[in-house]
Structure formats: C-alpha cells, structure tokens
C-alpha cells in the first residue's frame, strides 16, 4: 500500500471497473495484467504482486 495513493489492487480495480466495459472476469484479467506489469519497490528491491481470481459464476456478469 502506498502511504498516499492507496493499494495497487484497489486502485487498479477501481480504475478498470470505471473506465473499461466487459464481463467482470475479463475486467479482472485486465487488472491482473496491469498489476503483473507493475514493479513495486520495497526496501530497495523490486517486488511483484498479482491477484488470484477464483470464480463460480454461472453466467457473464456485466456491471456497467
């Protein structure tokens, strides 16, 4: 979590869910892609983080 900008996960979800259209699982794939590209630096070393998505949805879910 960044002291001022917040967590990469919540910030990325909010950005993708408000600016992109598509089924939720595809939006979450975009969240994973963006987070996988990012390099976070902690104690001078690069750290990587990716969300884990587990779904039991039976249909496509659109929130827009």
């Amino acid at each position, binding site marked *: 979590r960044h002291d001022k900008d917040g*967590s990469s996960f919540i*910030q990325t979800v909010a950005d993708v869910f*408000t600016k992109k259209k598509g089924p939720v699982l595809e939006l979450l794939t975009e969240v994973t892609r963006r987070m996988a590209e990012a390099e976070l630096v902690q104690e001078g070393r*690069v*750290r*990587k983080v*990716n969300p884990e998505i587990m779904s039991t949805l*039976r*249909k496509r*879910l659109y929130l827009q």
Partner: protein
Amino acid sequence: MEAEIQPQPLEEETYDMSGARLALTLCVTEEREGSEADLDALERMFRQLRFENTTKENPTGQQFLEEMRTFQETLDGWAEPVSCAFVVLMAHGDEGLLKGVDEEMVELDSLFAALNNKNCAALRGKPKLFMVQACRGEHRDLGEAIGGDQVAVMEQEHPQTIPTFTDTVHVYATMEGHIAY
C-alpha cells in the same frame, strides 16, 4: 470415417442486473496508511456502477461478522428485487483470516458464508462479488525475468519481470473441503 465436429459459439447468458445493487465496504484504516485513498476510489467506482454502498471503518473482528449479518438482513429485507452484492474487505490479514482493529482474527469463510445461496435468499442464484485487500502470508515475490534468456534480458536497459504466479487457471472438481463425485 468420423465426421469432423464443428464447435458452436458459447451462449451469451448474462445475469439480470435490472434490480437493486448493494455494496458493503469494511475497512480497517488504523495503521493502514493509504486506506483513505482506497475508500475514495471505491466510493467513486460504486457511484458510477450504481451500487448503493455502505462503508464501515475500523470494525473489530466480531464487528466484521456482525456487519456481514446485518448486510444479509438488509438484502433479504430489501423492498425491490436485488440483482447483485459487492463486498470489499480491507484489513491486515493472513491466509484465510482478516484482523479486526482489536487484533482479533476472523475467518474469511465465515464472512463469505453470510451471503451464500443457503443463507441469503435475496441473492440466491445471483452474483456476489467479494474483494479482499489483505495479506495472505509473509512471502514476497521477487518475480522472474521474462523470456528465460537471462543474458539477453540483462542487456536490456529496463529489464522486465513477471510475477511468479500468473498465467494459470485453477480449476477444481469441487469446492475446498467437499467431495467430488
């Protein structure tokens, strides 16, 4: 000779989202710098997606459970049909656990259970989204160089790395703890 099978396109069945959309955000902000920015971003997102969101800050472990039960009662008592629930949980945590502001741990499964098809009639067969912003352990991922050719990658001005655990789909025959028939 066997006839060649012609695969058909998937049916585009979607969830009906014409009813009410309710969200609950439970967030421990104490000793979690940056939480306010997350709460602001979520509020904007819920407004745009037409979710009626309730935010509770700094719940204790017990209050995490109580707020989920209250949310379930709100959903079941809602005057119009409900289409979808969206729950965001933010706190310190460990695998399967969230830590309340009082340091009491609460099991994530207990929180999820409040809205399952058995316990929440209003959401039976309807989509429920849970997002958890919390640690699930102590491991740090340093990533791996993309491409596999370490020498070539090291020559790049900006070496690219990829997380260790992407590009995998986990599909189990049944839920954790359940029999597979």
